[in-house]
């Protein structure tokens, strides 16, 4: 009799799990480097959300995490709290996070910036910057740029944070 009860309970659980569905979200791996491996990261000159100039060249000597993202991009939204944390944690060692939003206008980006308490400069991207970085044809795309200004890694899709952090630490150690 107990076996019958157990069987019924197990069947309910299995069916319940089936109904709810287990969905795995694909996580991107490092997709290799842009066409010219270890080439100098293309410079750009944009305005951040506060109207201040944002030029990559000004961050030479720092390790730069360059994040192409958008407010409508779910994986991007998941990454940003980690980037905020990295910026705090590694600021003194020379990490600079820069966000380039691919949103169509500034309003949602400004709201998002406040809501997520972003602590690094964010600018609206454009076609020119996107093309310079090999085309931003899907989000998120994250670049790591070494102190020498050269691209060290490119990640297409949601980054595995432990892998990224390891890479950041390794680049920060290189003087």
């Amino acid at each position: 009799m107990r076996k019958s009860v157990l069987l019924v309970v197990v069947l309910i659980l299995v069916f319940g799990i089936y109904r709810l569905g287990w969905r795995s979200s694909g996580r991107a791996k490092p997709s290799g480097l842009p066409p010219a491996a270890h080439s100098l990261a293309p410079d750009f000159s944009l305005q951040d959300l506060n109207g201040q100039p944002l030029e990559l060249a000004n961050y030479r000597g720092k390790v730069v995490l360059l994040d192409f993202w958008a407010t409508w991009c779910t994986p991007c939204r998941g990454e940003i709290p980690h980037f905020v944390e990295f910026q705090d944690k590694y600021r003194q060692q020379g990490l600079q996070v820069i966000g380039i939003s691919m949103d169509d206008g500034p309003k949602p980006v400004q709201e998002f910036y406040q809501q997520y308490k972003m602590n690094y400069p964010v600018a609206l991207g454009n076609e020119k910057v996107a093309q310079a970085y090999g085309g931003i044809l899907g989000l998120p795309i994250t670049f790591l740029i070494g102190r020498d200004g050269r691209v060290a890694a490119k990640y297409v899709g949601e980054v595995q944070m432990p892998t990224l952090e390891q890479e950041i630490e390794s680049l920060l150690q290189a003087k």
Partner: protein
Amino acid sequence: MKNSFRYLCFIVALGILAVMVVPSRHALAQAQSAADALAPGSAQLINPEDLLNLLQSSKGEKPLILNVGPSLLYMQAHIPGSEYIGAGSDAQGIESLRRRGKALPHNKFIVLYCGCCPWSHCPNVRPAYDALHKAGFTNVKVLYIADNFGTDWVYKGYPTIKGQ
């Protein structure tokens, strides 16, 4: 007695099952209508290679291809002949899609695509598909872009053009 208890267990199990299933169906029905229709492998999807073959073939009806993704991505690269509608995730984009649909017969072969993000995260194709479905279009497919437009179309060497 033993049989009666088993019968009782069975009835209780059915009751619990009904409680578990029915509310979740109600709550998720609207959100999942497009998600179910556009689950990987469903008939409403068309793979990039199949669309390419269709476009390059001299036979068969050519679809009207509508891009419902972000404009910055469209301007960098898009499928030749496709029209930019606007992001399916915002009301303006859906309104543009409805307007575009007004000029079309309901049996028009339409392919929607975006490619902004991995398939399960794309915020644009599902609302766009839903809008056309509700408007009565009967021959709508969605281009299945597993990762993004770059990986699944551009870097495969499939034809693209830039600009608006």
